[in-house]
């Protein structure tokens, strides 16, 4: 356990050392927040669309921002390069579990991300006006959903990074993942706006749990029963991906060739 805790602390310390880079790395999610806020403000000024009013859409986008920022100080680039360089061999000889170690690193930076989210949400609300929070039970369910989002997002990134064992290329895999996640999670546009078949597929995919589920619960667009189902789907995917990742990892290790010393 101490080993994992040390890794978690190391991530946080590294993130704080390169503060400037940390802020810049938030850029993509922040730019998307600003652009979408501006687009929807103009559109919804006239009339609600698909039942979304401007304050609701703003809350939706803020939840999407929070969901997009959590678990982003992730060593996925480092992990990818270690796999591609063969340095991963050094990780293999360490007496800790590889998957848990990466999870510990992801959790290490969490508190920094929460502070950054607090600042951005605070500033946005200060500039554009207050926001309604849901009633007690829905709020609790929202919190549960946000908590599940952390391992879920980690696992999706982790599994896609394991693809480096096969592809020798990380950028392409990462771009493809970002594009798919952005659309199917509802981060780019709420799923109800998508064609029905696509929305349904996205709803049951692991990606919906990355934005849509917590956001819909927060806005109380789903009742408690539906909300519980959505959170259960999130939990189910966390379990499937956690054990699925182990299988992928086993197959990946058989592929691994490290040259030289």
């Amino acid at each position: 356990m101490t080993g994992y805790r040390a890794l978690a602390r190391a991530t946080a310390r590294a993130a704080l050392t390169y503060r400037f880079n940390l802020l810049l790395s938030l850029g993509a999610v922040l730019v998307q927040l600003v652009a979408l806020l501006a687009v929807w403000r103009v559109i919804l000024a006239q009339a609600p669309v698909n039942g979304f009013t401007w304050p609701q859409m703003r809350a939706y986008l803020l939840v999407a921002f929070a969901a997009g920022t959590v678990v982003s100080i992730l060593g996925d680039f480092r992990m990818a390069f270690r796999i591609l360089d063969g340095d991963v061999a050094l990780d293999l000889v360490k007496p800790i579990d590889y998957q848990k170690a990466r999870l510990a690193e992801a959790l290490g930076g969490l508190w920094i991300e929460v502070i950054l989210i607090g600042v951005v949400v605070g500033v946005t609300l200060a500039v554009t006006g207050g926001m309604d929070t849901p009633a007690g039970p829905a709020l609790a369910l929202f919190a549960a959903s946000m908590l599940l989002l952390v391992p879920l997002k980690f696992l999706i990134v982790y599994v896609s990074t394991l693809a480096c064992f096969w592809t020798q290329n990380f950028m392409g895999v990462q771009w493809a993942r970002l594009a798919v996640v952005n659309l199917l999670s509802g981060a780019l546009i709420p799923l109800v706006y998508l064609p029905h078949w696509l929305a349904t597929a996205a709803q049951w995919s692991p990606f919906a749990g990355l934005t849509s589920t917590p956001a819909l619960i927060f806005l109380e667009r789903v009742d408690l029963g539906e909300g519980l189902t959505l959170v259960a789907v999130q939990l189910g995917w966390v379990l499937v991906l956690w054990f699925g990742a182990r299988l992928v990892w086993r197959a990946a290790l058989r592929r691994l060739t490290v040259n030289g010393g």
Partner: protein
Amino acid sequence: MRTIRLYPRLLGAHFRSLLEYEADFLILAAATVLMQVVNIVFLSALFAKVPVINGWTFWSVVTMFGAVALAEGVGSLFFDGMWNLAWQINRGELDYYLVRPYPVVLQSSSAAIGINGLSNIVTGGLMIGAGLAHSAIDWTPWRVALGVLLLISSVVIKVSINLGTNAACFWLSSPSPMFAFAMHQVGDLARFPLSIYPIALKAVLGVVLPFAFISFFPIASLLETGTSRWVGLLTPVIAAYCAGLAAFIFRRGLRRYESAGN
């Protein structure tokens, strides 16, 4: 003349090495196409419910997204090496460039080839083509010439911004192009009509980092959409200004360069 002739040959060397990794090329191409498909799905979902945003229709916004993709594509296919500048400075690799009889900036920009640029050029071109085909403008020879001039200028602006922001690494001394990348992302804001943003952002995108001249202003001029149609005619001027400024920043930066000392 020799400078121009050598450039494709420098890139060609990287291209040949790239061909060794066929799967890489396919993955990158597929990923960039996927990103544009997601953009189109997003826009069509958005415009399915609201036909017009501040005078901009689905097809005119697709044209803007296409212009950005085209400019980025040219930037990565022909000038991807710029993104390595931070690393080259940090490692002292510019030493080699400085002693060769070829402009340092071109050696740096040809130091890599982003094959994803190719798919971005193709998809961007298709988006622009589809957008223009759905617009109701009369194609006179003069308008075609204007369109070509505006698109070339928009590409020049994008490449110049890449160079200028990457050259900032001479001062930032970070081994990664994080600053330039963050600025590149700010440019994503300019894929939407500028009129939706608050005044401060308009100033940033129109004046400080003229991303709006890559897509919004030239497309507004060409399609005669929106309220500020004439501003787009300034695009070639802005392009010349950006190129000059980027070259100036690079030259000043190069004077600060002091190797890595090994």
